[in-house]
């Protein structure tokens, strides 16, 4: 496996989170497993997390990447709350990515809210892995 010059993949810690009431966890679990197979350290929150629970998990696990999976249409309400919580907790350098059913017209707003990347349906696992390798923050 090729590794990014910036960081060793085995040191990147990724939180895969399912905020909101949405129970569709197929995508989150497939992504979590693919990231683990790619050598990242993966923490999966499980379902039905409040924004506060997601932020707490990110802090406790001291992650480099927070990935949200939302398929219920609640992203406009949930994403800003989580981003604000991460900032308040001092995790300002976290790579913040989003996947699920996100309508095209909502993507600019999501970016404005601090989402670094929105992965829409059909994105390949390889693309997600490569993106994280390239963009995860380096910490001392």
């Amino acid at each position, binding site marked *: 496996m090729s590794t990014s010059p910036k960081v060793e993949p085995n040191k990147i810690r990724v939180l895969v989170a399912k905020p909101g009431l949405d129970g569709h966890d197929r995508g989150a679990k497939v992504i979590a497993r693919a990231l683990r197979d790619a050598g990242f350290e993966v923490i999966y929150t499980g379902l039905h997390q409040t924004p506060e629970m997601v932020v707490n998990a990110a802090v406790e696990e001291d992650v480099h990447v927070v990935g949200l999976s939302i398929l219920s249409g*609640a992203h406009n309400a949930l994403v800003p709350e989580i981003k604000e919580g991460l900032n308040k907790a001092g995790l300002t350098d976290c790579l913040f990515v989003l996947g699920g059913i996100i309508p095209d017209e909502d993507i600019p707003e999501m970016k404005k809210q601090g989402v670094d990347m929105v992965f829409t349906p059909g994105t390949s696992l390889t693309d997600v892995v490569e993106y994280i390798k390239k963009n995860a923050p380096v910490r001392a």
Partner: protein
Amino acid sequence: MSDSKMDQLKKAQAEWEQRMIAGEKKVPQRDGCFTTLSDMEVPLLSTPADLEASGFDYMRDLGFPGEFPYTRGVQRNMYRGKLWTMRQFAGFSSAKETNERFKMLLEQGQNGLSTAFDMPTLMGYDADSPKSKGEVGKCGVAVSSLEDMEELYAGIPLGDVTTSMTINGPAIVILAMYFAVADKQGVPHHKVKGTLQNDILKEYIAQKEWLFPVKHAVDLVTDTIEFCTKEYPNWNTVSISGYHIREAGATAVQELAFTLADGLGYVEECLKRGMKIDDFAPRLSFFFDVHNDFFEEIAKFRAARRIWARLMRERYGAKDPKSLMLRTHAQTAGVSLTAQQPYNNIVRVAVQALAGILGGTNSLHTNSMDETLALPTQESVMIALRTQQIIAEESGVANIADPLGGSYFVEALTNRVEKDALDYIRRIDEMGGIVAAIENGFPQAEIANSAYHFQRQLEAKQKVMVGVNKYKAPEAKRMDTLYIDRSVEKNQIQKLAELRTKRSPQAYAETIRKVREAAVAGQNLCGPIGEAVKAYATLQEVCDTLRGVYGEYRETGSF
């Protein structure tokens, strides 16, 4: 076929194979994997030898339509007597808007209603709960109280339509609200017809909209079966669902096996309460996915009916033919739809719908082309409904019962699917039944493995999704999708605040107290919950009362 004829056939077939292989020097097989969507090997050719090898016996394995073991369908005259019910799942925004969609669908020739609830409702939260923020009216209609339910079915005579309601965790409360509306319309109990999904076991396996620990949740399902068997004899108490299991990534065989195992789980619970098999089994119904692989799906439906009929007769001694019949709704596979080149979805849905019908489904929802992007627009719902009407009225397939029966390939595949599903059911029996299997995470892990395996196959292009990993095209203009306004949430919150000041506080407190007492005492809760919703206790108020007694279910975040 006589032995000597069979020997001749096998010899001729072996010789043909030699010639075929020789021919492949000139025209080799294309690259690609010649397996079903669920990775079962598919032969190039099927002949009577395959049927013999899989132990086929016409009278034992097929029989006739409407007769044991129902492989060929549950109605004697199949679709000549009654076409499948065309039932489009609908629900979004407020009760008022969904009510308008319902009326449109009925005017356009749909013959049954199917209700989708939003996430808060599915999880037993009111629109004004902090947990509901951003979710109200998004994935379905918001129903927090009897008042919403009254608006949802306003002007629709509940004695004349059949209604399906897709809800599980708090199903007992929503059912009580529906019966209350029917009462207010003056509909006699025996004329209230429809289906409550009420299949909590598959929630733990796949759909993940749960409230209580498994045992208590299963007790609530059993309460509704017991209550309806006495009070609402024509209500389908549980729609035992493979759909969500499949959508979560299961193979066709896993979908079939886990669904039937769930069904056996409910049967066992009812028997434990002293109910008689032929009193409640006729009102158990099923709900399967119809995915892309045409023949695999047809085989799955045929095998489902045969396995269920045999298990009900052999294991439980059921005698009423209605107990033996697996009646099923089907829905085309949402997960097969693509956001890329979305018009292609119309074609996928048509092929899947045809498979469901050739499989002998009793009811069908065809997905709309835009459902991978958002809830469907009115226009796309219409195309989906017309797809069914074209198959029903133009294609001719509804003229004949089980037209693929006797196909060497379909019969051999039906036997294979049956055998593999029975293997799973045996393993689950050995674990102590489906509740134990779920608590051990067995079906969940099997499904997660299949989902990951399939995603890997897609990445390696061993499986094709047109427009996604093959035949990609620059995206044309984006499709207009349905947008749910945030004002829906605000209005619902406002309505609830008003409701809480309007209703009688005494009646509310008294009926909620009785729900709590009955829950603590382990009594059937249908009666007390019925009284509470009539006193306009909200969905969450009832569910929180039960949460206080039972606790909540939590899943560990394994993947």
